């Protein structure tokens, strides 16, 4: 087998090969470490590569296979984790210089569950400072999109998008507050799922917004996302806001014949969406229709206000999380996040109250639409990844901000509404950059979202393309 093919193989296949002793966990870890050595100086997906610990775990995993031990669902699979999750004995920077030497003595619950399932922790993944988009001088290296390294890779689970797309890991664990899994998934051409808030524990996740932070998978196939969801989901006594609902097995059969699909009209009428993205998402809706889903348009009148509503909440939340640095060592923070937090700190409290009311109205509109439809679909972003040099302006103007908020309006409505949403590749621009489509579901109906995504994936080829690096 060609090594590149093995590196890009879905987790579901790698699990089978490990169980059948056709490939060993040590081989897998060595292969991904070699790929990291080869590509990551350029891509900057990783903040920390836990080389020795990963090899040690791989040897133990290999011994367990040899002994015939009972194996977990991710036994021997090398997975990388966003540097926002606490990892015992492995430094956790949250993308900040302030935590450059912070080594936790505990794992986040999602990490614990991956380890218990047999996954091998390959390293920690790059992210903007404190998870805040708009970071200009990345403390741990400027991340680059593997499809075109002159372009950004999305944020804030930036390293997760890059490492998954470039096969620098088998899969990644990301975090999504307002689109932080879905945006890099879209820009890098991989599958990224934000679960319902409360489906996956936030314990050990360095917080951005307590009421919207979620942990979720970033993978090369929908079936891989389902396997990771099954592993990390479920009640956790360490997070009082996790639901005590049973976790389905997320079995996928690709049947969407009874599924009602609502295509959100406002995005296509906004004038924000580029033609190639609009065409690709509409074509994907047609595929679902051909498979027997009932596809219709739906209107969500407030949807384009979501970005500014979300940022008023998120920037304020971050300002509280980082208040000590803002007061005592502001220069430790990159100018982008620092200015976002300073501005949010100056908003009137009465306005924040109104923003929270607007969040509820948004939630009502999204959930009302989801009473009529099983899933909603829309573009994950108004266009493909932009050029890095264009994102590096020294001082943002009003126009820059409005564009930024408009982009956020494509993912944040579903964060505000606390519903599950998945981004997956649905095409490529003429210049070869991935285009992402979102599938949104009812609260705790991740299974329906995954089912629709799987049906589309098995009847399309966007997920089969590889970045030109390989």
């Amino acid at each position, binding site marked *: 087998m060609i090594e590149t093919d093995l590196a890009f193989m879905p987790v579901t296949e790698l699990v089978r090969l490990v169980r059948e002793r056709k490939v060993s966990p040590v081989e897998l870890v060595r292969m991904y470490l070699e790929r990291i050595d080869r590509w990551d100086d350029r891509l900057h997906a990783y903040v920390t590569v836990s080389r020795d610990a990963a090899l040690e775990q791989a040897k133990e995993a290999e011994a367990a296979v040899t002994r015939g031990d009972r194996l977990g669902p991710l036994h021997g699979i090398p997975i990388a984790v966003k540097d926002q999750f606490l990892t015992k004995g492995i430094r956790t920077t949250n993308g900040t210089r302030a935590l450059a030497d912070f080594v936790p003595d505990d794992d986040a619950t999602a990490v614990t569950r991956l380890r218990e399932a047999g996954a091998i922790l390959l390293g920690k993944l790059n992210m903007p400072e404190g998870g805040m988009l708009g970071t200009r001088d990345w403390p741990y290296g400027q991340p680059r999109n593997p499809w075109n390294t002159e372009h950004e890779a999305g944020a804030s689970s930036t390293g997760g998008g890059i490492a998954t797309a470039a096969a620098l890991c088998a899969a990644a664990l990301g975090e999504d507050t307002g689109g932080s899994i879905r945006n890099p998934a879209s820009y890098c051409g991989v599958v990224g799922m934000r679960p319902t*808030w*409360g489906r996956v524990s936030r314990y050990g996740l360095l917080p951005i917004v*307590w*009421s919207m932070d979620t942990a979720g998978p970033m993978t090369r196939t929908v079936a891989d996302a389902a396997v990771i969801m099954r592993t990390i989901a*479920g*009640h956790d006594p360490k997070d009082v*806001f996790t*639901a*005590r*609902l*049973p976790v389905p097995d997320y079995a996928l059969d690709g049947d969407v014949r009874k599924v009602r699909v609502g295509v959100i009209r406002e995005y296509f009428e906004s004038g924000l969406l580029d033609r190639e993205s609009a065409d690709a998402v509409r074509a994907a809706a047609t595929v679902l229709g051909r498979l027997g889903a009932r596809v219709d348009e739906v209107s969500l009148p*407030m949807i384009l*206000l979501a970005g*500014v*509503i979300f*940022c*008023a909440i998120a920037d304020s939340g971050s300002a509280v999380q980082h208040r000590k640095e*803002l*007061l005592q060592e*502001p220069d430790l923070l990159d*100018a982008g996040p*620092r*200015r*976002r937090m*300073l*501005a*949010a*700190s*100056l*908003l009137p409290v009465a*306005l924040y*109250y*109104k*923003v*929270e*009311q*607007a*969040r*509820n*109205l948004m*939630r*009502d509109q999204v959930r009302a639409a989801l009473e009529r439809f099983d899933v909603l679909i829309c573009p994950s972003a108004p266009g493909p990844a932009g050029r890095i040099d264009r994102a590096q302006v020294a*001082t*943002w*103007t*009003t126009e820059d*901000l*409005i564009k930024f*908020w408009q982009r956020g309006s494509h993912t944040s409505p579903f964060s505000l509404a*606390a519903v599950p949403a998945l981004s997956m590749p649905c095409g490529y621009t003429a210049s070869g950059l991935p285009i992402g489509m979102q599938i949104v579901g009812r*609260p*705790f109906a991740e299974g329906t979202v995954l089912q629709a995504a799987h049906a589309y994936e098995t009847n399309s080829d966007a997920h089969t393309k590889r970045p030109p690096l390989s």
Partner: protein
Amino acid sequence: MTTKPLTPEQVATLAQAGGLLVSSDDLPEVTVRVNAFLDQLAALDELPLDSVQPIPALPHPEKTG
């Protein structure tokens, strides 16, 4: 924006009142950001929010597990 945009001097004074120091490098962009927020969020005045409660998170469905 229905009201006059804040000046950098007013933004600096606001920050000082909140115990925050905004450097001269940061002040122009922080001013742009505060004014843009106030301008864009003015659209919320058009929404029927009077009877909407500002609840950050709703309770999950009934516990079954």
